[in-house]
């Protein structure tokens, strides 16, 4: 009963072996010890000795660089001991300078709490008054003043930091002695949230500058292709990068299996069914197994299938399988983490909520159900297997969708591909202007310092905020003169501006909360909602009080929202044209309305209902391809064929775009129309979901050559006849992939490839 026997089962026994298309083995590796020129402060040396810890070479490099006063970014793999590598030099400084303080920032409250345990332990081991403390929304008001007055190491998250900056004068002691800003899991701070975080950090740095503090930044992150550029965008400093090459941690052998449900042809089996089966196989082989699902719904669904299978077979472990995801209440999550750590749970299905460093111990096997959207996530999730030197297994179950199948057929690309570029866009007008309001409310803001901290776009935004009377010019600089407090209205995620909808069970218990847009598509009346592997049916969605009422009800169907999207072009900002095909990029206004929903049993649509819900309208960035009229005329294409071709090309393009731009597929939307009123021709739009855009389509416009070529290749080489989910079909398509014309889609893509050939070949 072991990882090896599980691997044998997969590769040698039916039905598993037929789906195994590739096995990659990463050999075990011995540790490489490092040496410090000067030993650590004696209490820290004692601390390590008591624990029997030997420092590895990447850790000593980090310590040496931090001691030398450099900003440092650590990108060694998961479980390589990054935390210790920065804790030691930070604490050494806290010991040497009794006034020095350090700020630790985590993406979630749970992570801060988790890390506090480690730091509190360290605090007990060293003779210094550090008093590490978590300061977040859960910190009782009665304890806050004391933490501000006494603690020298504060753990918090960016939501709290954002609010806290409004009260900077209460933190004068802490800020003016700030020696370190530690940012863990830094790769998380990309896209909308990352752009907000970068601006919160600029606000912090501006306030620190006023009290003459200039801390060292210490970042820990997953591996990124653009580590230096990203760190600089996020923090404004260029760190010393300590990466995989320096990694001296020991590692067990790891087998990485591609398990492709499409291997025997489309529709033979489903990836969810296979994931449930693999999870069951792992548990039966005595290997503690964690499966990562790409959505909350799928996490619930797979856990339920695995449990049902076990119950059907009267297997004793049915109760040892559980789902885990964001949206559960904190206590529920803590209990699940504990049960996984101590082995009571043998199989778990999680969303990416467990991807970050929450301590769940070591796992024998990890299943990636579907490509998690980015190589960064795939690496982080795979890293959950095999902490320590024991052998481990990672199984990837690709979905029948373009990106998954493209990668599944190219293992060399999967393992060899440079990691994606994480994008931060500090110039998004909505994000930037919100933080300018906050900055002006924290300390009067003069134009010169605005440009220094917030970039060249700040000036125009300030003009507009001033013209609208929100800021006022005074001899001390621009002063916030509106109400309520800017910090109350500016939120760090795009959804923060929306109302939060409570999901109420039996009119009483809050089952979970979700933002407005999500509620419109997932908690409309009649929707089936999964929570804790149970099904709930939504009976009503109150549009004025933001409450969705649900009843627990065991049903064997689920629901899919149907969304109607309209796009209006506001401004074409850049364009390239070749033989009448035009690629454009610019500003658009998107209107989305959930107009109804489909009820599905299995793959069959059993009912279709209309809904009357309000639309959501926003301005963002888009790229769009406009086809010449000559495209359809000589071919004598019927409207349905033309539209089917555009439709297929649209699906495939959106599917592959995350290979070039680090984003979730959810961050992008698309629309294809046979005749768009603003272009007067057949048009394919790929737009961003974030208001104002965060640079995704701008990067897509730059990389259009590579994108079009890869998409063309994918669709052309797909073995299916008329299209399938691995090429031109989209599982989330509101029109059920109708009309669809794979042949015309290949022609459309071929045309786009020509267009893009003019591009600078060095672009990718």
């Amino acid at each position, binding site marked *: 009963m072991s990882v090896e026997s599980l691997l044998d089962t997969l590769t040698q026994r039916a039905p598993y072996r037929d789906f195994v298309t590739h096995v990659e083995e990463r050999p075990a590796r011995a540790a490489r010890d490092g040496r410090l020129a000067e030993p650590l402060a004696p209490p820290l040396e004692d601390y390590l000795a008591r624990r029997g810890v030997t420092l590895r070479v990447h850790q000593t490099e980090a310590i040496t660089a931090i001691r030398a006063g450099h900003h440092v970014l650590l990108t060694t793999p998961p479980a390589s001991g990054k935390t210790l590598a920065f804790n030691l030099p930070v604490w050494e400084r806290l010991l040497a300078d009794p006034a020095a303080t350090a700020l630790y920032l985590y993406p979630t409250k749970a992570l801060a709490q988790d890390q506090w345990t480690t730091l509190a332990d360290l605090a007990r081991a060293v003779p210094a008054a550090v008093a590490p403390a978590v300061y977040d929304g859960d910190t009782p008001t009665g304890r806050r003043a004391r933490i501000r007055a006494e603690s020298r190491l504060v753990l918090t998250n960016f939501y709290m930091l954002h609010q806290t900056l409004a*009260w900077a*004068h209460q933190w004068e002691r802490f800020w003016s002695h700030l020696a370190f800003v530690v940012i863990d899991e830094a790769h998380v701070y990309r896209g909308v949230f990352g752009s907000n975080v970068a601006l919160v950090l600029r606000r912090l740095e501006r306030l620190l500058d006023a009290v003459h503090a200039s801390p060292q930044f210490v970042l820990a992150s997953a591996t990124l292709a653009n580590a230096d550029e990203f760190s600089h965008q996020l923090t404004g400093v260029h760190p010393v990068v300590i990466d995989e090459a320096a990694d001296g941690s020991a590692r067990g052998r790891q087998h990485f299996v591609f398990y492709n449900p499409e291997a025997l042809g489309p529709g033979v089996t489903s990836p969810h069914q296979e994931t449930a089966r693999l999870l069951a196989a792992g548990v039966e082989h005595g290997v503690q197994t964690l499966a990562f699902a790409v959505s909350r719904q799928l996490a619930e669904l797979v856990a339920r299938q695995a449990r049902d299978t076990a119950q059907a077979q009267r297997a004793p472990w049915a109760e040892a399988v559980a789902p885990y995801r964001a949206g559960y209440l904190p206590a529920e999550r803590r209990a699940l983490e504990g049960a996984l750590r101590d082995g009571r749970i043998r199989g778990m299905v999680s969303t990416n909520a467990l991807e970050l460093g929450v301590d769940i111990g070591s796992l024998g096997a990890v299943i990636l159900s579907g490509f998690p959207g980015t190589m960064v996530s795939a690496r982080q999730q795979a890293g959950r297997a095999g902490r320590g030197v024991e052998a481990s297994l990672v199984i990837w179950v690709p979905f029948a969708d373009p990106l998954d199948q493209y990668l599944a057929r190219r293992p060399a690309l999967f393992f060899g591909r440079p990691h994606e570029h994480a994008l931060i866009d500090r110039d998004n007008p909505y994000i930037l202007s919100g933080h300018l309001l906050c900055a002006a409310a924290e300390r009067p803001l003069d134009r010169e310092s605005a440009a220094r901290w917030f970039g060249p776009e700040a000036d125009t935004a300030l003009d507009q*905020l001033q013209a609208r009377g929100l800021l*006022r010019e*005074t001899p001390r600089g621009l*002063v916030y003169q509106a*109400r309520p*407090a800017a910090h109350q209205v500016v939120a760090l995620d795009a959804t923060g501006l929306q109302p939060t909808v409570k999901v109420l069970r039996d009119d009483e218990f809050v089952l979970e909360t979700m933002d407005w847009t999500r509620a419109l598509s997932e908690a409309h009346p009649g929707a089936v909602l999964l929570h804790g592997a149970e099904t709930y049916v939504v009976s009503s969605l109150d549009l004025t009080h933001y409450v969705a009422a649900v009843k627990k009800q065991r049903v064997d169907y689920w629901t899919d929202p149907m969304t109607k999207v309209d796009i209006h072009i506001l401004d074409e900002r850049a364009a390239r044209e070749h033989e009448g095909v035009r690629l454009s990029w610019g500003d658009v206004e998107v209107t989305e309305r959930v107009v109804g929903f489909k009820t599905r049993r299995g793959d069959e649509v059993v009912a279709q209902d209309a809904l009357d819900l309000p639309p959501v309208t926003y301005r963002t960035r888009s790229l769009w391809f406009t086809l010449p009229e000559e495209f359809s005329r000589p071919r004598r294409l019927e409207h349905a064929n033309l539209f089917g071709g555009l439709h297929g090309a649209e699906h495939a393009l959106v599917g592959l775009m995350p290979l070039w731009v680090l984003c979730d597929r959810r961050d992008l939307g698309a629309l294809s129309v046979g005749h768009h009123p603003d272009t007067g021709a057949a048009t394919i739009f790929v737009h961003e979901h974030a208001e*104002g855009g965060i640079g995704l389509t701008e990067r897509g416009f730059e990389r259009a050559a590579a994108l079009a070529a890869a998409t063309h290749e994918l669709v052309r080489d797909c073995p299916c006849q008329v299209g399938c989910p691995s090429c031109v079909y989209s599982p989330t398509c509101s029109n059920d992939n109708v009309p669809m014309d794979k042949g015309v889609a290949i022609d459309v893509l071929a045309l786009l490839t020509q267009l893009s050939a003019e591009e600078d070949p060095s*672009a990718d």
Partner: protein
Amino acid sequence: MTAETGGDPASGGRIFGVGDYWAARLTEAAPLPAADVPSADAFPASPGGWDRRAADVLALVTARARGRRLDQLYPVTDTATPEGPCRTIRSSLADVPPATGDPHEARRELAGALELVWGVGPWHAAALRAAGTRTLADLTHHPRFGVEASRVWGAVAAGNPDAAFWVVRHRCGASHRLLWCTRALFDPSAFLFVDIETLGFSGVAAILIGVAEWRDHMLDVTQYVAESVADEPALLAALAQHAVGKQALVTFNGLAFDVPVLAARAAYYGMREAARSLGALPHFDLVHFARRAWRHRLGDCQAVTIERELLGIVRPDDLPGAYVPPFYEAYQQDGEVGPLTYIIDHNRWDLAGLARIFTHLTPGALGSCDVG
């Protein structure tokens, strides 16, 4: 490499109407209060005063003073401050004479409060009294409590009200009867009554700082008024100047609101001295005493409720505090002083009420209660 950017240069590259965007969101988050005017007697000139909503009231008060200047309605002068001149309105009230209690009686009561000594609880106090230790002076000879008792007795007996205040404040908290007793040790002219008007609860500007003090049996009211938020530093500086020589603050909820807000605003402008000055003064926050005294009788212990129920005072034409921010914004938008006059009057009522509650509150109302 970034693609060439086209578009309308006047729109400033990527900015799409962010001024309007945030203005709309801020308005959504802070609409005009929908609350009705709370008194049937308010705005007698308008029919159906009860039903009026904020916007109607605003229109009415704007119309009443349309075209007038502030100095046609009030005696306005400029106070010089290091931050520039500050618009100032002074007035005097004859009907709130000083009444701060008898200092001898206060000293007697404090002298007998053995519980002021750390370690002496109700049980010890009773035992000590039974054994003949009546006063702090007696306790100074006690083998266990003597040292601490000497310190406390020194503070209470020395005739230094500041020292007495802090001894009691640290031992008993902000609402204790003994703390209220210490007010009698101060000279009436040493108090500074403070009430501020702001655009909200936190992170927003103070637009009026009102202070009052007793001088020759009159209550002198001084109001520092911001004609725009650009005047805020001058307001803060004027207050700091005004507080020089004062020995104690009196506020209603100032521990939680006025003083921290003033400190935050001064810190915002980098006025470090001003940020610290008020926090260091003994501070009688009446809301704490009022709650202890009248919580059971009144239900809510808002200043207006106390004035109406206990002092029989009904403010004519007053507006709820929630109207201050939108009224000030209206004044900023078109320069019509009507809405501002209501803020000024409201603040003056608050200051007068503060002084009235101060004189009405006796140690007896606070009952006897345990220390700690």
